[in-house]
């Protein structure tokens, strides 16, 4: 029952993030560059819930985004699925207690998502790749995502461990020692 209510909460969080991204961050940009909260959201689910939930949410949210904005259906779904998996991989290999590791996870996830999406899209839609401009945009987006995750870190921790307690079989301590 608790798992079900957490899933409902995560779905609600998706809509909140969607409206924030659409209405707030489309206007509040750094040099015209918007952050991508969906990457942080799926990374968070992969990190604190389990691999299955991370991947499922990644695919479903990616598909919704593809249907809403995408020029090729499935690209965001594949990449967000990868981010969900990456979150669970990070969870097994790194500590979530440290803010610095969270920052590196956000950097890695943003890099992988944007590189993947851009290159798959460039193959499907056959457009010329602009490497320099792409790197410039990704770097600014990474800075924006990192700043947002630092601000949201206390919220991550509180909500994260609530999700963690309900989705992980083992106690947190026994997983580390």
């Amino acid at each position: 029952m608790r798992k079900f209510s957490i899933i409902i909460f995560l779905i609600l969080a998706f809509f909140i993030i969607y409206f924030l991204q659409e209405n707030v961050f489309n206007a509040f940009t750094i040099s015209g560059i918007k952050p991508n909260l969906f990457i942080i959201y799926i990374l968070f689910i992969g990190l604190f819930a389990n691999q299955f939930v991370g991947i499922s949410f990644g695919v479903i949210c990616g598909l919704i985004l593809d249907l809403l904005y995408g020029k090729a259906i499935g690209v965001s779904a594949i990449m967000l699925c990868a981010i969900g998996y990456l979150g669970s991989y990070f969870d097994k290999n790194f500590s979530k207690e440290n803010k610095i590791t969270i920052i590196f996870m956000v950097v890695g996830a943003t890099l992988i998502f944007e590189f993947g999406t851009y290159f798959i899209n460039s193959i499907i839609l056959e457009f010329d790749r602009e490497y320099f401009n792409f790197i410039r945009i990704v770097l600014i987006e990474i800075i924006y995502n990192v700043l947002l995750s630092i601000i949201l870190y206390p919220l991550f921790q509180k909500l994260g461990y609530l999700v963690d307690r309900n989705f992980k079989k083992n106690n947190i301590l026994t997983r580390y020692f």
Partner: protein
Amino acid sequence: MNRNRQTEILGGIITAIILILLIFLSNVEVNKLSYLESVASSIVSPIQRVFADLRNKIEGNSTYFSNMDNITKENEELKKRNSELETELRELEKIKADNATLQSYMNLTQKYSSYNTIPAYVINRDVSNFSSTLVLNVGSKDGVKENMTVIADKGLVGHVISVTENTSKVQVIIDSASTVSCTISTTNESIICKGTLENNQVLRASYIPTGAELIQGDSVYTSGIGGIYPKGIIIGTVKEIITTSNITDRYAIVEPVVDFSKVDTVLLILDN
């Protein structure tokens, strides 16, 4: 532990301030930094006002507590009147917004009366930094089909790439995957305009014929080649011509006439 928590909160606050400053400074032109002056004055003025009041009282000029009962009664009445006016104002603003939308629909339809068109409203904008799509409030039940041309008050916006029953997705011409065949107004030469990641407010015009003489300020129109866009819709003006060592590689920066970040009312051309 408590100290760690405090440091964490402080870190969060400092990061938020840095983020707000970054957003502010990257979006505001340097000559508009006089805002800072008004911010500074708004910080100082309340304190200054307290000092001024104190000075007035000492000098015997204050009438602040003279007729408290009357002031309270008057205040109540004014508050009531204020809330009534606010309600009226909200209603008026809604009517004004509806009127503006209808007016812009009408203006657009009149301007492009030679085409069979339907008006539409932008309901969603792309959230990605690498693509530019719009979602419109009209779909297949309104007669929208894929590849239909979308125009705004000033010029070309893009074309429909997918349609649902109630909505349609439009690829904007500044999208990095978009290509439009165009002609230059003065020389009638054909060029190709593409979206670029360098700046999401301009187009890059390439494949300029070696003999073509481009002039800054030349208008660029759709050529009608390619099968999507009809001939003669204005796209923008030549902003800059970049010459390279090899003349075949030269390109131009075209500034679209439509401001895609603000466009909210468009027309779909039904019969291309």
